[in-house]
């Protein structure tokens, strides 16, 4: 009767990964397999604490027998799969995804590895045409309260914020994708301001944004003042002081001041997600 879940013995499947026969646990994705085998694979819309939506297509690989490339982040491995992660087709598609994004979106605050991958694949977004002559998502930044900044000029529409606000974590659904095609964008209902929306300011959307489209007001203000410097910031993991759930906090500090708060996405309590108190309550301390 004492049915503690027992770890199910892992079944292994054999696949061929870039010519090497390897055995990986059944149920893992191709991306998992790549990472296990030390094959670096770029991702944008994937995050370990979110359900894969496979929309950015930068992690695509070639699978023998498949007419088109497949997203490694969401496709489970199957016995006998033959996978190529660095074929000409893969390189072209990955490069083009970066070129398409960087030609339409401001990518300067994207994670460092994004820029490394772009260089790796030789992405030249400028060949799409002059910014002024082609469609982009340029628009003014939205600063509507003291906690959040939304700069959709930097939005690659990876859906991570929508997932974190919705099904994958917070279940508030204050934001969703609206519009269609190139006009698709992240929006509140009727595009009302964030304080007028259902937003509860958990900050979980900011926590998952890969390009700096969503940021904390503290970061935004420090950037404006020219004082934001990630190189000298330190991160300390501790435990939130509000309620007894035991959420781990990562305190980002610069010059002995807390400048932002995140949570480790691999922690079983938070999965990287916090509430407004844990995320912003520290400002009490900063102000006192």
């Amino acid at each position, binding site marked *: 009767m004492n049915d503690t879940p027992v770890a199910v013995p892992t079944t292994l499947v054999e696949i061929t990964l870039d010519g090497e026969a390897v055995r990986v646990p059944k149920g893992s994705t191709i991306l998992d397999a790549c990472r296990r085998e030390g094959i670096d694979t770029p991702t944008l819309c994937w995050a370990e604490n979110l359900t894969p939506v*496979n*929309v*950015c*297509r*930068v992690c*695509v690989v070639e699978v023998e027998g498949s007419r*088109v*490339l497949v*997203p490694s982040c*969401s*496709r489970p491995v199957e016995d006998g799969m033959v996978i190529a992660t660095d074929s000409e*087709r893969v390189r*072209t*598609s990955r*490069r*083009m*995804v970066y*070129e*398409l*994004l960087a*030609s*339409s979106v401001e990518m300067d605050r994207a994670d460092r590895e994004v820029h490394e991958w772009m260089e790796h694949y030789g992405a030249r977004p400028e*060949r*799409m*045409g002059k910014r002024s002559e*082609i*469609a982009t998502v340029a628009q003014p930044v939205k600063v509507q309260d003291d906690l959040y900044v939304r700069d959709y000029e930097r939005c*690659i*529409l990876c859906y991570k914020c929508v997932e974190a606000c*919705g099904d994958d974590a917070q*279940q*508030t*659904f*204050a*934001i*969703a*994708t*609206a*519009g*269609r*095609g*190139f*006009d*698709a964008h992240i*929006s*509140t*209902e*009727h595009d*009302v301001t964030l304080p*007028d*929306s*259902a937003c*509860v300011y958990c900050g979980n959307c900011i926590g998952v944004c890969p390009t700096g489209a969503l940021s904390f007001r503290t970061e935004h203000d420090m950037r404006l003042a020219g004082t934001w410097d990630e190189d000298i910031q330190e991160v300390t993991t501790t435990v939130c002081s509000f309620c007894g759930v035991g959420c781990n906090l990562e305190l980002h500090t610069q010059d002995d001041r807390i400048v932002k708060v995140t949570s480790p996405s691999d922690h079983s309590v938070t999965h990287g997600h916090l509430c407004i108190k844990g995320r912003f309550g520290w400002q009490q301390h900063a102000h006192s």
Partner: protein
Amino acid sequence: MPDLYFGAVDEATDAEKAAVDEAIADWGPVTIRVSERLVHGGRARMRERRHLLLPALHALQRAAGWISPGGLDHACRVLEVPPAEAYGVATFYHLFTHEPPAADDTVHVCDDIACRLVGAVDLIDDLRTGGHHVKASPCLGQCERAPAVMVQRRGRPDLTVTATDGGTVGVTEVAVVIDSGVSTPSVTVPQTGDPGLRLLARVGVVDPTSLEDYRASGGYRALEASVALGGDRVIAEVTASGLSGRGGAAFPTGIKWRGVADQEGRPRHLVCNADESEPGTFKDRVVMEGDPFSLVEAMTVAGLAIGAEQGWLYIRGEYPVAIQRLSGAISAARDAGLLGDDVAGSGQRFDISLRSGAGAYICGEETALFNSIEGFRGEPRNKPPFPTTHGLFGEPTAINNVETLVNVLSIVLTGSAAYAAEGTERSPGTKLFCLSGRVNRPGTYEVEFGATLGDMIDLAGGLLDGSRLRVVLLGGAAGSFVGPDSLDLPLTLEATREAGVSLGSGVIMVFDESDDMVDTVRRIAEFFRDESCGQCVPCRVGTVRQEEVLVRLGRGAALDDERDLLDDLAAVMKDASICGLGQTASGAVRSALDMGLLADIAEGNGGGGQ
């Protein structure tokens, strides 16, 4: 959703509230307040009702002429859908509007490839000058009687205006239809009376609004036969017939059905994909308008065979006449015990819900269609898993298009052997083709598989007097251009595959030497840009960049400077897009490039672009 939050917006009008409440009346709202101390609600009930969002949005648009913030909030309250999500869904569809309407009637004028050949662009100007509230529309599925117009009306049923024999559509014709409130009558098919017709036999012959007439002409015998056969044997017959999907992918229908039928113990669904939106395609419309009971019967046969209790008929919102006919047919069948708890004495339950789309080509993609029915944005899902195991509501689903389903009737009636005796060995049966463009008798044609492209053009009366064949768009916007050297190409699955082209949805659109191919190709690129759902990067941005290149070429840019980019765009869209839309968005453009049509552009032969 439970912590629903509603901001300060004007409250819904009584008419809006009534419209929404009526649209969801069969299910009721999510939250049931039993007493001041007892409330039932919560997430399970919310999930069960989410599929009512699309009907509720239609009800609002119809009632008020737009989706007002207050109206949307009302729908969200009763269905407990978070307003941001509902707004995301409402703004996905082009037939829903988000500003107060400029007029009671919105006139959607098709300016897509076939209609623009016959003056659609001028018609738009004329109607605007005439004071109408006009929107340019992608293909309205009336290419055989172009140009086409659909009038979306506040508080009243939508209307279709098309050319009639020998006529055209102008401001007067539109005004006449609006004033009368009656759509231009459906056309018959050019082959009416031909004994070789299988799928079109009743079109133009039997009253499409009469169940009695349908039965008198042999209708519902296939259902009787299939009840007698039992599901497994029906599936075996369909499998043996070699019937394959007519939506474009040509997957064997029997195998699909077997896969769903085998998911015993789980609720299963039958979905009819009647979201016929591929530019140049109108064959399903002809069947649905002219012989709606055949589709209802075929869905019933399929539903019983796979053990589904619920069928869903998803039809594009731009087909008001077909919607009306099918609604009538479903009701009549239900009243006659041919749908419901015990279908035709089978002891099995099967019923059909009709859901109409709202202006989104992408919803013809099967998984996008599921999302649309479920009340989400019509964004395709990644496959695998496939619909057979994870379809509508995540449950096993057989999804077939209209033409595929109606084929089943003759298979059940005459047996698989007789069915397979027609057509070729690898493409058995008959096929519907949509002939449009510069032919004498455009229309829907049914032929045995094996006819060549030239045969089809001949069947449509050949090219117009004085016209010389330049190219044919085969398979629709997602297909490709072929030249006069392909006239001998047999239009079978095997022959087209070998030739590297696709039958797609059976589009044969004929262009002559006078046609502006620049403009045509650019319009195709524009179509994909407009119809991309926006979910994946290759398609969302790729279709925009592709159109930009074509505009630049039209303005005289050198093709050599753009060729690499076009190649790369084609590669990433084809290889890395989530669904068929992105994967085929470069097909026609590429074939135009290969045939030298774009070189003409660069040489200024065209001068397209707007």
